[in-house]
Every structure is written in C-alpha cells, then in structure tokens.
C-alpha cells in the first residue's frame, strides 16, 4: 500500500493557498502539462489530480459550485486518478479520492444522466471494497479509519441501505488505534466522512465515531456543536 506523504499534503495545501491568492491556474496548468507529457508514468498523474481536488474543494467551500467548472474538474479528477490506479493500484490516496469524488463531488447536472450516476455509485462501492481489502493486508494507518466511514456512506446511500453493513464498517473504524493524522491539509478531506456520519441521526454508534474523530483529528476546528 502506498501511504500518504508529506509531499502530497504540502502540494494540496500549496494549491489551496495559491487559489486564494488567485495564482492557482499557472500551477495547475504546469501540472497538467507534465501529466500530458508523462502520460506513461502513473505517478505523474498524482500532482495534477491533487491540484484539481484542491480547486474543487475550494470552489465548494467558498463561493459555491460553478457547475461548468465542476463538470470539467470532476472528469479530470476521475481520469487522472484512474490513470494512476491503473499503474499503481495500491495507491491509498488515489483510491480514496476516487471514492470520495464519486460519492460526494458529482456535479448536480449529472443528475440528468441517471444511468451514469448509478454506475458511478457502483464504481465507488467497488473501489471501497477494494481499498478495504488492500488495507487488510497492510500495517494499520490512522487514516484507514476514513475508508470505513466513507464506505459506510456509500453503503447507506445505496438502494440497500444495509444498516448491519454500516454497523460493521463503523466497528472496524472505531476499534483500531486512533493516533492523530499528521496531514493537516489532506486531513480536511479525511474528516469529511466522520462529519457526514454524525449528521445522520438514524445511524448508530455516534459516541464511538465522535471519539475516533476527536482522536484522529485532535486540535482541529470543531465542525458543529456536539460533534467533537
């Protein structure tokens, strides 16, 4: 399993800062060029994919979603992560981000294509199963817990709404060692499934999820009263 690195976190935070300074386009263009030039090198896709994820994140958390831009970003993120995972299927962050993108970041206009949406959900579920299987063969890392919570979201938002499966996934996430995740920028993405989960009153084990969230993301800004 290829772990998250400080370089990944640094790149993500730099693109976010650059976007706030109005200087992200040049960086993203450079990373896009390199991705195009080094098409046969799977890892060349990562900086570009991460920069696009950063831009999409900022769009969502600042001025709201620009539909046209989000459709383009979505396609670029999925394609570049796919290229990376084709060559390096054990890349944890790439697979996590692909699940996340398909689960949470689908542009609203895609609702006009229901078959596509259903297929994307199915792909996210398959990716989640694969990431969980790959994690099982690797030494436990604190951020692995986020996979289980994201998989719980995928399961809960599927047609089956399998509560037993959700309960099992949460048990896996909350029964493991929960040391603080030392990636401040990417940690913002890894927290999301916990935040989502705690916003679902019908789901069980909120207390255990809250404890794990607090342990993994110690010292981070509370997300809402009673969540952390």
């Amino acid at each position, binding site marked *: 399993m290829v772990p998250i*690195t*400080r*370089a990944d*976190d*640094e*790149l993500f*935070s*730099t*693109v*976010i*800062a*650059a976007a*706030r*300074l*109005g*200087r992200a386009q*040049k*960086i993203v263009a*450079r*990373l896009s060029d390199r991705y195009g030039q080094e098409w046969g090198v799977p*890892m*060349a896709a*990562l*900086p570009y994919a991460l*920069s696009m994820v*950063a831009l999409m*994140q*900022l769009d*969502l*958390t600042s001025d709201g*979603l620009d539909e046209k831009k989000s459709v383009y970003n979505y396609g670029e993120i999925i394609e570049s992560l796919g290229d990376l995972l084709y060559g390096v299927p054990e890349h944890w962050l790439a697979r996590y981000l692909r699940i996340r993108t398909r*689960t*949470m970041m*689908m542009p*609203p206009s*895609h*609702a006009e294509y*229901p078959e596509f*949406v*259903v297929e994307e*959900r199915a792909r996210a579920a398959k990716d989640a199963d694969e990431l969980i299987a790959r994690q099982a063969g690797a030494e436990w890392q604190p951020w692995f817990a986020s996979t289980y919570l994201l998989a719980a979201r995928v399961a809960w*938002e599927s*047609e089956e709404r399998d509560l037993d499966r959700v309960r099992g996934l949460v048990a896996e996430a909350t029964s493991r060692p929960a040391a603080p995740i030392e990636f*401040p*920028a990417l*940690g*913002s993405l890894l*927290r*999301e499934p916990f*935040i*989502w989960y705690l*916003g679902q009153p019908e789901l069980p084990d909120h207390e255990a999820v809250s404890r794990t969230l607090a342990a993994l993301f110690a010292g*981070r*800004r509370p*997300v*809402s009263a009673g*969540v952390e």
Partner: protein
Amino acid sequence: MTAADSIPTEDGQNQIKEVLERAIADADFGRQLLDDPDTALEGYELSEVQLLLLRSLDEEDLAKLTPENLDAYFAVDSAVYTPEDSAMVQTGYELYDTDELD
C-alpha cells in the same frame, strides 16, 4: 526537485509561509523575491509547486499580503467543510436519490 518525488522537511509546509512573512516584513527581501527569486530563495527547501507559486507573484500580490491574510490563505482548516458545507454536500448527493431517478 518535483512535487511528486520531493521529500519535504518537517517544516516544509511552513517554508513558503516563512518566505512570504519575510517578504512582508523586509521590503528588500520582497523586492529581491520579485526581481531575483532564485537568489532570494537560496537556503529554503521548497517544492516545485511552492516555487511556482512564489515565482508567479507580482508586486501587486505582495502589496496585498498582510500577516493576517497570510494566515487565512494558509489556514488549511478553513478548507474543511463546515456544518453548512456538509449539509450542502449531503443535499447535493440527495439529488441523485434513485427513487427520484426511476
């Protein structure tokens, strides 16, 4: 050094912020950063992407920077979903409720 294969130092994430803080506090350094970034950045361990950002700045950018807004630019937690953002994400995904799509 490329972003993909660079191994930043423990402080790597703050180095770019340190450069900008220095550019705000020290006008000569700020000028040098604009005129001769290679020399200005000697001794700093910066990734390719950080260098790209610093080299793309112009006089107007530096003039706008303050210690306060620099903190905001580099505050990673402000890119975290707030409860409102979280609600937005949830609402967005509910658009694809399969019951409605049938």
